[in-house]
């Protein structure tokens, strides 16, 4: 019990959110630095002084991600076949969510049910006022009261920690980097030959930049993607922790995860685009390598939850 108390003191509710926002700024800075660096090398290698490619990449990425930012919740709910419920439809689930919201001091989100026997849940919405939480019928039927509560607390923590907004920003950056890298690799083949004729003196320097550029263009999208996945996994641990802080019962979520692990049933309607939103990876059973997964391994999460309760 002593460990629980220590943990609780360390993980101050508001300071954790502040820390998240701070980390977000830090990561954004890293991503922007990568983009600027890539853009610099790119323009040096191509002799393009307008940085047109960089702006193009950022604008395209921003545009596509803005759509997911403003309509992402509706898309996610629609593609997963979630149906909105009211208190009358399912007072049990509604009250669980309502009570958790009282305990966390957030507004009650819209609640959805997905007709699917697999145990899973997801949260979406760019801010707590616009959040939605969806659970599968499998979760409602197969999980005990405190297990379902743990699951819902995890989802509500995603909302409270502004994870959806944060992951959207990360997606903009990763998108910009990979578009930039793509432009670079393609345009090199189109304009590469002509340029060396144009500029005799800078030829050697341009060639060096070209080599560096190619290496960067190949590596940076992979690195960016890996950072994104690592962030996504970190947010899962964070949601596990802040969810436990809400219910004061980490064992509830741990047991729920155990049941999910034992079942090992993938969700019928899942897409890679919405995978990071779910409680556990909706594609489980397809054995993803952990480095390329949006979620940490379930055993690892259970272990962490158990140390919280010990």
């Amino acid at each position, binding site marked *: 019990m002593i460990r629980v108390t220590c943990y609780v003191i360390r993980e*101050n509710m*508001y300071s954790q959110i502040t820390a998240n926002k701070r980390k977000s700024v830090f990561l954004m800075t890293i991503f922007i630095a990568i983009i600027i660096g890539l853009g610099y090398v790119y323009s040096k290698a191509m002799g393009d002084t307008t940085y047109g490619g960089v702006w193009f990449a950022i604008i395209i990425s921003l545009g596509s991600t803005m759509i997911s930012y403003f309509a992402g919740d509706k898309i996610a709910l629609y593609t997963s076949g979630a149906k909105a419920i009211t208190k009358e439809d399912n007072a049990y689930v509604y009250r669980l969510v309502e009570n958790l919201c009282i305990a966390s001091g957030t507004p009650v989100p819209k609640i959805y049910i997905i007709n699917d026997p697999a145990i899973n849940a997801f949260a979406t919405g760019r801010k707590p006022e616009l959040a939605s939480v969806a659970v599968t019928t499998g979760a409602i039927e197969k999980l005990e009261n405190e297990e379902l509560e743990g699951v819902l607390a995890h989802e509500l923590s995603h909302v409270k920690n502004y994870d959806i907004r944060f992951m959207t920003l990360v997606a903009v950056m990763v998108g910009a980097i990979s578009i930039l890298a793509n432009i670079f690799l393609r345009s090199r083949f189109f304009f590469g030959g002509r340029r060396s004729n144009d500029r005799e003196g800078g030829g050697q320097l341009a060639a060096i930049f070209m080599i560096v550029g190619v290496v960067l263009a190949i590596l940076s999208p992979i690195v960016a993607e890996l950072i994104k996945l690592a962030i996504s996994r970190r947010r899962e641990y964070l949601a596990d922790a802040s969810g436990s*802080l809400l219910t004061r019962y980490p064992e509830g979520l741990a047991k729920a995860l155990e049941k999910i692990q034992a079942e090992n049933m993938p969700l019928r309607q899942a897409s890679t685009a919405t995978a990071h939103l779910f409680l556990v990876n909706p594609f489980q059973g397809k054995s993803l390598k952990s480095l390329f997964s949006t979620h940490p391994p379930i055993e690892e999460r259970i272990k962490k939850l158990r140390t919280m309760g010990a």
Partner: protein
Amino acid sequence: MTPTTIVLIVVGLLVLWIIFTYNGLIRSKNQVDEATSDIDVQLKRRYDLIPNLVETVKGYMTHERETLVKLTEARTAAMAAHNNPNATMAQKEAAENMLSGTLKTLFAVTENYPELKASQNFLQLQDEISDTENKIQAARRFYNGNVRDFNTKIQVFPTNIFAGMMKFTKYEFFQASEGERQNVKVQF
């Protein structure tokens, strides 16, 4: 840089620090107060539900007059403690726990009245009340979280010096769940 400039910069920084610290403390304090009123909302909901419950149950439970009287008394006592500005946190808590205890006793006794258990009205009330109990617990947890944050803020260095000067004092935590469990044991 002249010594005057340095002094001015230091004083300026100090003033800024004081402003930020003070505003931060006020914000935390308001969060605690807000959490307190959240608990009040739920407590009030429970006070409002009890007369309905007594009305519904009265017709069926002819042999339990005493339990019902106790319940009404406990409600009155809890409301009195709640509205008394001089009552300490512990006193309020004791009164609320007493009320929870009598409610639990009442629901335990209803097991002997099958007709009552069949009444839709009663079942709905029972449901509402137990939900309110859960909500009271949740609101208290939120309150405790806010109190913890506020207490930490005014205790850490160097804010503690300033908080002491401004007469910011620690808030008390709720320890309801433990007390409630014991209360029930006494009742049975």
